[in-house]
């Protein structure tokens, strides 16, 4: 048997891997199936076909796996689709590791198709589509190479380069065309046919809200670059970095160790109004991503109304009600990996009197101090304030004192009896929760009402909206100003309020999240309405030319240079390819010409030995004085010149030469037809 082309097998196995990936991205496959498949893929890629020798054993193992999956299916522990997908993956792994003959190839590709179909039933997100495209491309290349390999005679090298280059070009066109088709025409929503995966990387919660804030918790969250929240603001602030507070909830009671909330109303409605609206509201469309992991709605300070909540569950999008808890916290009533909702907030300087809504017990709670407060705390507050009674001025004095004398650190002091005293008098360093707690308690010792607020600070511009990361989680202080309500005061040094992670990882993640968001918007949730909007946008000429010019002139020179360099490189590569084109075309043309000559000669039954080239044939005919040699000699010479001598056939020359040959062949055939008659005559007579 001929040894199969290694590249084709690698492409085949990678294609199966991509198909498996299309299922695996849903995150619903059992872990052991994932492990088995990955191991088989690695073995197959390193050309270790262990099943080839133990075909029976592997069949028994497959049977056992099938029984296991069936048991889990009947016991209700596993979805039928998931079980089928897992089994398809196992079959594919077995086929990859068997002897690479044509039937194994076909079965591998077939299971690949099955897995892609299974993946479609499990998830419809972007990574799935990428896997689907990868499978399509790799499997096509592998199949095409297989066809070419079968056509090439034994012992000759397979022209991999000359096959793959045009094929890759054609495939890129096909993929681009399919994507254009996908966007131009509306389609079924995946969510209607099957379970749907959540946006973002899996459903691992990294941020979120607990009912308490405990000083001395883990500090790694500050460097977590995962995006937890995506928001579009109207009116758009248009800034690169948003310096705004996204409040989640507030706390009014500190017991020396942790903050809790003792008072608060409880309501469940479609829409919650926290404070009366004014006429300059800031509208936010917020999407909470799985990395958020909580059920608390956040909105920019100071939220006025929250509602229109949708939960993105694996079985589709569902409307959710929201519930008001203590501390102004609003929660979804449904648990889902991701949510969207709308919020209206009062702008930071809006005049709104919230004091009227505050009950007496609530106001008393804002002055409550821990039972065993270190007496030095009150002394410190008194010495810093120096008689200042006006709440905001007092708060500012304390803030400047804290920011001047205390350092920011993410290192934890460990489990302490009195973390506040440790921060204020011993370590003199801490993170945002220490600063906020210190400010709040210091204010309270001097009879000024204040509470702790937690949420996020900041927001990075991306794709017309803003991204907030897990590392942007923050705590700050609300100071109650009579007649004005709560005013946000932040004791944390300004440079340490936002995420402290690596910039590159943050940028990459932000890019992925932005692309993913756009994918959901334009593919997963694409509908007739979007198509209509696109069409009307195309019909109507764009009117914002001036604005466009302004943005383009603001393009940073660095980015422009890099873009230009990339474009130049691509153009150069394209130029190289185009420059090499004529030579290859010329060679191919000569070979094509030879094919046509061969076909003509075969049709005319010119006697020719199996391994004889046109050159040999012509030489032989010329030596024998065959009449065809006259027509063949110039033709052969021109072919050889074009093929090996670098002098291409002129336009129409091939046709001319072929015509001459055809005429000569016809004459030869006529001569032959004549001769048998002559020969037949005498014999007939003789008999």
């Amino acid at each position: 048997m001929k040894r199969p082309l290694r590249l084709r097998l690698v492409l085949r196995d990678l294609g199966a891997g991509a198909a498996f990936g299309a299922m695996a991205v849903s995150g619903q496959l059992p872990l052991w199936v994932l492990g088995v498949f990955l191991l088989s893929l690695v073995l197959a890629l390193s050309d270790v076909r262990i099943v080839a020798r133990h075909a029976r054993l592997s069949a028994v193992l497959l049977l056992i796996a099938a029984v296991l999956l069936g048991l889990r299916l009947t016991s209700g522990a596993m979805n039928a689709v998931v079980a089928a997908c897992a089994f398809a993956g196992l079959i594919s792994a077995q086929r990859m590791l068997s002897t690479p003959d044509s039937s194994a190839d076909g079965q591998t590709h077939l299971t690949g198709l099955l897995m892609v179909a299974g993946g479609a039933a499990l998830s419809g997100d972007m990574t799935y589509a990428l896997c689907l495209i990868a499978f399509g491309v790799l499997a096509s290349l592998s199949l095409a190479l297989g066809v070419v390999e079968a056509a090439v005679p034994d012992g000759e090298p397979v022209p991999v380069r000359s096959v793959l280059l045009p094929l890759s070009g054609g495939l890129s066109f096909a993929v681009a065309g399919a994507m254009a088709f996908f966007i131009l025409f509306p389609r079924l929503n995946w969510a209607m046919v099957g379970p749907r995966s959540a946006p973002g990387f899996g459903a691992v919660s990294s941020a979120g809200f607990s009912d308490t804030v405990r000083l001395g918790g883990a500090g790694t969250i500050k460097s977590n670059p995962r995006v937890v929240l995506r928001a579009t603001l109207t009116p758009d602030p248009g800034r690169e970095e948003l310096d705004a507070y996204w409040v989640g909830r507030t706390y009014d009671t500190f017991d020396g160790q942790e903050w809790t909330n003792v008072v608060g109303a409880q309501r469940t409605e479609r829409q919650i109004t926290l404070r009366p609206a004014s006429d300059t509201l800031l509208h936010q469309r917020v999407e909470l991503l799985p990395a958020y992991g909580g059920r608390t709605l956040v909105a920019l300070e100071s939220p006025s109304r929250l509602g229109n909540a949708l939960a993105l569950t694996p079985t589709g999008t569902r409307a959710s009600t929201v519930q008001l808890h203590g501390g102004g916290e609003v929660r979804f009533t449904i648990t889902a990996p991701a949510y969207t909702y709308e919020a209206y907030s009062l702008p930071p300087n809006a005049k709104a009197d919230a004091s009227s809504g505050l009950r007496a017990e609530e106001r008393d709670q804002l002055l409550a101090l821990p039972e065993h407060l270190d007496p030095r705390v009150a002394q410190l507050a008194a010495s810093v304030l120096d008689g200042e009674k006006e709440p905001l001025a007092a708060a500012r004095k304390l803030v400047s004192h804290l920011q001047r004398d205390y350092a920011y650190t993410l290192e934890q002091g460990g489990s302490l009896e009195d973390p506040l005293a440790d921060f204020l008098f011993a370590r003199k360093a801490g993170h945002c929760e220490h600063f906020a707690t210190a400010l709040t308690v210091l204010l309270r010792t001097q009879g000024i009402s204040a509470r702790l607020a937690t949420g996020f600070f900041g927001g990075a511009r991306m794709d017309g909206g803003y991204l907030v990361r897990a590392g942007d989680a923050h705590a700050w202080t609300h100071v109650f100003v009579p007649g004005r309500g709560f005013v946000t005061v932040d004791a944390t040094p300004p440079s340490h309020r936002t995420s402290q992670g690596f910039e590159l990882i943050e940028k990459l993640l932000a890019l992925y999240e932005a692309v993913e968001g756009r994918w959901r918007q334009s593919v997963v949730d694409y509908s007739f309405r979007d198509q209509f909007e696109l069409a009307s946008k195309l019909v109507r000429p764009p009117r914002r030319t001036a604005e466009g010019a302004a943005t383009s002139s603001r393009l940073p020179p660095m980015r422009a240079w890099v873009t230009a360099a990339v474009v130049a490189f691509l153009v150069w590569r394209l130029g190289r390819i185009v420059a090499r084109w004529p030579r290859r075309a010329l060679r191919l043309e000569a070979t094509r010409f030879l094919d046509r000559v061969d076909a003509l000669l075969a049709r005319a039954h010119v006697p020719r030995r199996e391994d004889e080239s046109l050159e040999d044939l012509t030489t032989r005919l010329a030596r024998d004085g065959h009449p065809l040699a006259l027509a063949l000699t110039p033709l052969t010479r021109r072919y050889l010149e074009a093929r090996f001598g670098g002098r291409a056939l002129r336009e129409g020359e091939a046709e001319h030469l072929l015509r001459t040959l055809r005429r000569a062949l016809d004459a030869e055939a006529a001569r032959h037809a004549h001769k048998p008659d002559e020969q037949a005559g005498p014999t007939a007579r003789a008999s």
Partner: protein
Amino acid sequence: MERLAAQLGRAVQGKPTEVQRVVTCVVAGGHLLLEDMPGVGKTTLAEALARACALSFARIQFTADLLPADILGAQVFHSQTATFSFRPGPLFRQLVLADELNRAPPRTQSALLEGMAQGQVSLDGETHPLPSPFTVVATQNPVDFSGTYPLPDSQLDRFLVRLSLGHPAPDVEARLLTTRGAASPLASVEAVTGPEELASLRDFAAEVKLDASVAEYVVRLAQATREHGDLERGASTRAVLALGSAARAQALWEGRDFVTPGDVRTMLVPCWAHRVLLRSAVQGVSARDEAAHLVEELSRKVAAPR
């Protein structure tokens, strides 16, 4: 080239293909090994070649007692001046006929080696350049083995082409009888070219274009000989290069400035049959034919570019 071949054809009648190979070999700048039984015109061919090209010629009859100094030359003491001076041997000619090369001991055979490969002779620490062009035409008798030293492989590899003339056809032989008489056939050979022209011919041959696909074809042929089950040793890299230059000269002979796979196939057996080593223990003529047969079979098996 054709003029040259015509002159040679006068001396060695009825062998146009072999004569053409000889010319090709000389134009390619290689050395020639003629392997044949005595009396078929090997010496005549070599002498005619020297005459037609107007090359200085020497014939060395190799015998069992021939020493290297006999062919290379020696330091001679001049009693008048009391100095040594180098007296060049018969090798210092543009065309050297090494007759019955395999009769000389290996030591003498290998004395030829440096001359053939480097075009120079080292003697007593001094290097003496050989005249240019320098061509060795060696003959050996494949039938009579008694008292011979078979050529080592390294020496065989240095011959570009190995040919055997064989007996002339009966009609040619008959014509020889009637026309030749007492006159030497060499008398009719005229000088049609000189060393300078030969050198320029060699330059032309070196400039003949060898397409990448043809080069790849040659390499694939070499690969096939190396992987062949019946061959102890396949074609060396020197053999690949030799085939390339021989095919170039062949293309020039055909009046082309580029090499075709046909040229490669034409020169394949003369170029490589003596360079491969058979696994089987056959010797002599049958081994030679077997090797030629195997190499030719390979040329049919390995697909030519098209």
